[in-house]
């Protein structure tokens, strides 16, 4: 099901853990398939010096988190902002199509952590920890029903193939 790179990052995840005095924390969760991820950033001179993650999720979610931390570490904030879910999936040499959905939270968590860092820096009193409501459709422009994996229209609210309501779910 998973390729060797994915299995390697799943079996030996890099940068697992918590940074107690993190400069930015990003917590995202996918209520649909239950995956949740927290990213911790340590930033010096606008460069990500250290990054750690914790993830509740399937093999692909753990591998995505691990690969994301490898892509982000050492990058400037400006460069890290450009990391997309597709970049992470590509670095993993591909994920099963139905796993792209569960794994979209990877880059989202990083972006939320960066936003949290910037908010703190700007002196906002209540740092924003929550993810944005809808993830980007960054899996090649096509959209698939998260339940039955049939290709659907980007704005579909109902899957004709498996008769499921799709509010906010794809």
């Amino acid at each position, binding site marked *: 099901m998973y390729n060797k790179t994915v299995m390697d990052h799943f079996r030996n995840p890099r940068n697992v853990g918590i940074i107690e005095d993190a400069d930015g924390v990003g917590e995202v969760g996918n209520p*649909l*398939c*239950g995956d949740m991820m927290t990213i911790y950033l340590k930033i010096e001179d606008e460069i990500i010096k250290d990054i750690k993650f914790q*993830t*509740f*999720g*399937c*093999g*692909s979610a753990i591998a995505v988190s691990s690969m994301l931390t490898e892509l982000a570490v050492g990058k400037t904030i400006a460069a890290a902002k450009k990391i997309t879910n597709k970049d992470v999936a590509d670095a993993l040499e591909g994920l099963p199509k139905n796993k792209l959905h569960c794994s979209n939270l990877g880059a989202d968590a990083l972006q939320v952590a960066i936003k949290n860092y910037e908010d703190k820096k700007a002196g906002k009193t209540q740092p924003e920890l929550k993810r944005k409501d809808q993830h980007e459709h960054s899996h090649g422009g096509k959209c698939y029903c998260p*339940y039955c994996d049939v290709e659907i229209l980007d704005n579909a609210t109902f899957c004709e193939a498996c008769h499921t309501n799709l509010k906010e779910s794809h």
Partner: protein
Amino acid sequence: MTIINLDHISANPILSEVKEAMIAAIQMDYANPSSQHTRGEQAAETLESARESVAKLINCDNPKEVVFTSCGTESINHAIKGVALANAQKGKHIVTSNIEHNAVIRSLRRLKSMGYTITSVSVDEHGRVNPRDIAESIKDDTILVSVMHSNNETGTIQPIEEIGKIVREKKVLFHSDAVDSVGVVPIDVHKLNVDLLSFASNPFYGPTGVGGLYIRRGSQVWPLLDGGIQENNKRAGAENLVGIVGMGVAADLARSRMEERIAHTAGLKKKLLDELPSYIDEYIINTHPEFSLPNLVSVSVRYIEGESVVLMLDDDGIAVSTRSACATGSLRASHVLLSIGRDHADAQGTLLITFGVDNTEADVVTFLTALKNVVTTLRNISPLYKKATNNQK
């Protein structure tokens, strides 16, 4: 590495006696059982002998009431759609439960799109249907009630006998999906008061690709496959004789060895449940403490996700199954686990451990030891575990 198979519900090994019988059947080069010549008659005798074996397994005294199918799913489709189509002029209402297999759910969904109406009753915290709820759901235009015998995710066994009695009094047909029960626990179609019963060969160590459907004489059921006169006009198409021979032998063995198998797997199940607390904490047992399959344990391990557990245990040479949404390909939390009150996160960490004749007590210990390590590793990665332990402090 020797693989420890604790995933018998996904695929059972085929017993050597069954394999030998099937190989012999292939070498016989059987003719078509419908042919009138001698070789055809030999084939027909072999077919009918297997039918008798299978009928005995469900205590059916008239083997003609048993139809061979290609799998449990076909049997279920045949029962539900066959009854619905044959009885459409009487009514279009069907009663079922919230925890059925997809073969039932999707057959009913198909019928719904054709104008049938469905009432689905809820279950208690162990996944048991209250027969009174079924009684209250039956209306004047109800033509069928379908409730599974044992659930494939929790192992919980339903009060089929009681439900069957109510349904029969109301003169409605009653189908039970007994795919995970037939050949595993004693099944008696008369005692259960069923009109239709679906089952398959692999759960009792026969080959996949063969199933059976019991249709009580006089029940109005249309065939799914139209064509020739095979299976007493109930299922057209040349029979899978090699598979059927295998199912027949597996049925004989299931009957003669049932007590021994139940004692063996129930012993392993008890050991697992007794010893689990000394290996891991924070879990929920989904299996009914009293009414459940002897070979199945469903456990929701909190704060971790099932697919990750399956992959890590696989590295240790242990095969188990999960009902995590991520692993099903559907990305949807199990309707069965949600129905018995698990939340989405706990449903995610649900493992299904199913024992078979090839397992030993040592397998249970190896599994528990490996599980402890995997759970520790994954909880270290999990943000939910950190939050839960912080809250408890």
